[in-house]
């Protein structure tokens, strides 16, 4: 037996060719797979650029960038000024951030600095569930619960308005802000906190003067990411905000965002090759530029200003 195993292994080793083949091939296969992600980004950029260029052969760039009227469906004289869509998007984003930032940070501070382990075990899953609710369900919630609720003390609030979906988008973002900020706060070593406690500081003072400054880059990064998400949000707005492009900050009126416009056209019968068809790519390109910029910014802040312990 002593010779059998060793001899068999030696014999196997001599006919090793298929094994070597795999050793060389598999890394290349995996590299190929990893490169697909680059292909995807290239595909997105190519797609957006190609169709946007088609769009701009029909509509002037100046009109798009500076125009304040968005009436693509006016058969004879459509206008394609992007500003109403931008204003709708930012109205939603602003309302959402006004909701999400205070509550998200409050929850992060509580979970990170005050909550006992048992409480954390209960509260964190709640936030995870909140993060898992599909946006259509949130949209339905905004339309059929939040809007009527708001109408009870804002009598003139129309069914389709920006306030209700704005609030719900904010709610949707809270878990993300809380968990990312909490992660950043957790990275502050306990020993630093202990030093402050030993000097007689209260929890609030430690949280505000030590932890938050000590995790600032992570917190800011989480806020920027949250904002990016609010800008890219689609279904909540499509369900509850209506589809009326509106210029200016108009929370109590129906609005249209970049995302809900794209949805509106897709649900309709836009002919392939028409200006309206290409307009969704131009709007999509604008959207992509905004969110990409923000994501890069968030990454940059997180990386460059990261507090090192």
């Amino acid at each position, binding site marked *: 037996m002593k010779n059998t195993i060793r001899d068999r292994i030696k014999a196997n080793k001599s006919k090793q060719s298929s094994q070597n083949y795999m050793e060389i091939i598999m890394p290349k296969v*995996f590299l190929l797979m990893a490169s697909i992600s680059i292909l995807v980004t290239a595909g997105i950029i190519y797609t*957006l650029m190609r169709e946007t260029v088609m769009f701009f052969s029909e509509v002037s760039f100046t009109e798009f960038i500076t125009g304040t009227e968005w009436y693509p469906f006016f058969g004879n004289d459509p206008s394609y000024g992007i500003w109403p869509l931008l204003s709708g998007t930012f109205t939603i984003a602003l309302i959402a951030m006004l909701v999400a930032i205070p509550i998200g940070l409050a929850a992060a501070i509580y979970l990170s600095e005050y909550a006992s382990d048992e409480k954390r075990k209960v509260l964190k899953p709640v936030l995870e569930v909140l993060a898992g609710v599909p946006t259509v369900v949130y949209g339905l919630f905004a339309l059929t*619960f939040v809007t009527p609720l708001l109408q009870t003390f804002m009598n003139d609030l129309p069914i389709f308005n920006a306030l209700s979906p704005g609030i719900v988008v904010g709610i949707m973002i809270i878990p993300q802000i809380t968990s990312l900020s909490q992660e950043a706060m957790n990275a502050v070593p306990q020993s630093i906190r202990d030093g402050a406690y030993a000097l007689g500081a209260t929890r609030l*003072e430690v949280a505000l003067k030590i932890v938050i400054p000590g995790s600032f880059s992570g917190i800011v990064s989480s806020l920027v990411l949250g904002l990016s998400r609010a800008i890219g949000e689609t279904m909540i707005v499509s369900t509850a905000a209506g589809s009326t492009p509106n210029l200016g900050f108009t929370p109590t009126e129906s609005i249209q965002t970049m995302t809900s416009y794209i949805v509106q056209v897709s649900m309709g019968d836009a002919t392939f090759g028409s200006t309206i068809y290409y307009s969704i790519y131009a709007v999509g390109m604008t959207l992509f530029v905004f969110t990409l910029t923000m994501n890069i910014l968030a990454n940059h802040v997180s990386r460059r200003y990261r507090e090192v312990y």
Partner: protein
Amino acid sequence: MKNKIVSPNEKQISRRITKNKLARGVFFTGTLFGMVVLAALLIRIFTQGIGYLDFEFLTNFASRRPEDAGIKAAIMGTVWIMSITIPVSLILGVGTSIYLEEYAPKNKLTRFIELNLANLAGVPSVVFGLLGLTVFVRLLEMGRSILAGGLTMSLLILPVIVVASKEAIRSIPQEQYEAAYAMGATKWQIIRTVVLPAATPGILTGAILSLSRGVGETASLLMIGAMTFIAYTPTGFLDGFTVLPIQIFSWASRPQAEFQAVAAAGSIVLLIILIVMNSLAILIRNKYSKRY
């Protein structure tokens, strides 16, 4: 009695303590807000939709009359889409993470791939929909089909699966590799016989969570051309389709109040599906977490 420079007085201390208590209340309320909203949402959706949730709801197709509306086409559509998304995203995602964690040298290409993935994770789903529309539906002539939708969805959730798989692979301690190398195993053998088996629970958990995001995904499939009124179940991958969240959206957009209740009924089913999936993921995570 020496005169101390720093002599905190009792009044100031109790003021600070009170401030702390107040702040704690405020922060706790903020945390509770999430719970309250979640409860309100679940209760509201449940009470709104339960009336329409019966057996016919699960077996009927969509209809002009709210009482007859059903999610059969939507559920089947979701199943068909998932049958493409699951294998494609898993293979690509795990393959990518194996490359990044096991083979990739620390060079610019690797950093570029990782940066790229991070950015893709933040791209809105409508943009993925536009990509799918141009490349899959038109360029590759798949039409407004399940194939186009499933592939688009795979790309959408790819970054999340990669992150989860990378985590799972990274959590394997170096000693496991050393033990295998010392016995004369080659790198690919180690990946096949040590790394993947050990990382599988983590990968599965991440995959299920990513797929549950796909189940609730709406916007990108709308772009692909998922229909909102379908009266048949798919028979092939090039068929048209609808999925549950899109069906819900279509009902929610109808003016009649009854249809909103039908939408709520659909939401209940969707939430149940998600709860089952997430519980499965948590079960797997807990079962295999006590290690090393």
